[in-house]
């Protein structure tokens, strides 16, 4: 026991999440351990289908109807929130855990003004979540200044004009800024950012990344940053967890993972990034495709794509080993 769970914002232990697909249970997240300390940014990297997004949804309690947490604990500030009844889970969202989604085009309510959607965040933070706050619309509070301030913080010019608009009148970048403004208003302890820049242009991506790092500095919150982009994660995160087929295959300090990856999959991901000019040096790609969670290979899930696969890799799933502050699940170590 290195750290007590009270110092950690989030501690995930032995988490298994499954989907009902084609009449049976298939595991999208398997045996995940994850610690997020106070003020720490943890990056989760993996390709599509690696279970990273499922992990995020499990933590905030927004799994789709056909999936469930089949095993494990999610400790938020020391309390196991998987034990909390479904109709009480909302108490852990918003001011405690908040999440920003991939597609800013659809993550805001199209028939509600930006102002009202931000007002809701203030209502939640001030404990006004019930009927009294209005069924159809949050009441116009005296929080206008606060809303304007939050919009200014995320670099929106003319905030008083923007807040009277509807989402479809804004660009994708602006909408993602609104989501970050929402985080400023909620002041959560943990922010989950699920591929927050994937749907954006490069320049907008950079702006959003900067806003996220400013948000983290200003509020001192913990961040779980989920992305398929190794470099992006490496730039913002303190620690990185690399996921493959629902499992964490490697974990460690961001620079260490980027500079000296251990697991063949992590190496492959880093080597896959184009580097250099045409005809200089071929990048190395990982052969094959990520597995379907309904048809996972035996032993180490990565063995069919691994150049270094041994017989043991096919017969036996590797244990996670701790090697000097790093964790890796590979028979090579």
């Amino acid at each position, binding site marked *: 026991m290195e750290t007590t769970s009270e110092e950690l914002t989030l501690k995930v232990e032995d988490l298994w999440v499954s989907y*009902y*697909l*084609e*009449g*049976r249970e298939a595991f999208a997240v398997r045996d995940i351990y994850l610690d997020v300390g106070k003020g720490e940014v943890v990056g989760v990297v993996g390709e599509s289908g690696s279970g990273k997004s499922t992990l995020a949804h499990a933590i905030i309690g927004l799994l789709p*109807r*056909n999936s469930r947490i089949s095993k494990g604990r999610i400790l938020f500030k020391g309390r196991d929130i998987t034990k909390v009844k479904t109709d009480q889970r909302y108490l852990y969202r918003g001011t405690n855990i908040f999440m920003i989604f991939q597609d800013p085009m659809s993550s805001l309510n199209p028939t509600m003004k930006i102002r009202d959607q931000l007002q809701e965040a203030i209502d939640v933070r001030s404990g006004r979540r019930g009927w009294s706050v209005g069924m159809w619309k949050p009441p116009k509070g005296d929080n206008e200044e606060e809303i304007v301030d939050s919009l200014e913080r995320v670099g929106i010019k003319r905030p008083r004009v923007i807040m009277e608009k509807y989402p479809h009148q804004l660009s994708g970048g602006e909408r993602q800024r609104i989501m970050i403004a929402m985080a400023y208003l909620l002041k959560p302890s943990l922010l989950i950012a699920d591929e927050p820049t994937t749907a954006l242009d490069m320049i907008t991506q950079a702006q959003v990344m900067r806003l996220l790092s400013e948000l983290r500095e200003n509020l001192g919150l913990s961040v779980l940053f989920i992305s398929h982009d190794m470099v992006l994660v490496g730039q913002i995160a303190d620690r990185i967890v690399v996921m493959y087929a629902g499992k964490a295959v490697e974990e460690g300090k961001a620079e260490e993972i980027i500079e000296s990856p251990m697991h063949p999959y992590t190496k492959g991901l880093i080597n896959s990034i184009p580097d250099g000019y045409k005809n200089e040096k071929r990048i190395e790609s990982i052969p094959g495709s990520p597995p379907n969670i309904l048809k996972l290979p035996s032993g180490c899930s990565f063995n069919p794509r691994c150049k270094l696969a041994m017989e043991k890799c096919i017969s036996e799933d590797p244990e996670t080993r701790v090697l000097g502050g790093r964790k890796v699940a590979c028979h090579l170590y």
Partner: protein
Amino acid sequence: MSARTVLLSSKTLLAGAVIIVGFIVLAIISALDLKLLTPYDPNKINFALANLPPSTAHLFGTDSEGRDVFTRVLAALPNDVAIPYIIAGASALIGGLVGMISGYVGGLVDEGLMRFTDIFLAFPGILLALAISTILGQTHVAERLYFSMIALIVVNWPIYARLVRSQVLQVRGMPYITLAKAAGLTRWEIMRRHIIPNILSLVIVYITLDMGTIILFYSILAFFGLGAPPPTPELGRMVYDGLTALPGNWWSSVFPALTITLMAVGFSLFGEGLRDYLDPRGGDYVRRANA
């Protein structure tokens, strides 16, 4: 996936199919030889047998003129089963053609055709069909049935035009159409190879869902005497005729009405099941998982 597994995947689909096929079979037998199904003559008036309640001899009872209601229902089936298919088929064909031209040619042609379609679409369909077949049928009583069918096609095709157009537009925007154009395929080739196959299943689902509506519309026309001319029995008309014998003789209108309902329900079930299967946005996988 074979048709059999699709059918068995959903009880709704299966129930609908059984009803639809059952009616088709009954209608065919009735058209070939009514005597195979019932000993009575559907049109023989015998006041001695008038207003008999349902019994083993007269399953649905007899009407106020002593005709066996069950026999009359069976005798009405060939017309009442076949006509909705003809109407749906013709509406889908006409509407489909208009929609396809509109969606694929675009521009002014599209604009013009859609304005035209909108006018028809905004009409109160049943009433317009009633008016058309009443007025044209006044002087041509024998052809009244055809006027009714034409009237129902007139009020029905615009829905298909809209549906097909929106589907064509959706498929036309697909990247694989761009690729086909880049490969040098002609418009007709693209239509045949890519667009028609991709919209067909949806149009078929729509037709099955629409069949129920057409059955209802037609039965309302028949209710007002605009169906097949006498002496051919008509389910809708039987309901109307039975009204005069109320409240005593309820069976001579209730059973024909029930038959129409069952026919429409069959298509509703089948169409609903088919739609669920092809477009399971209600989270169909959950049901399959829990089963």
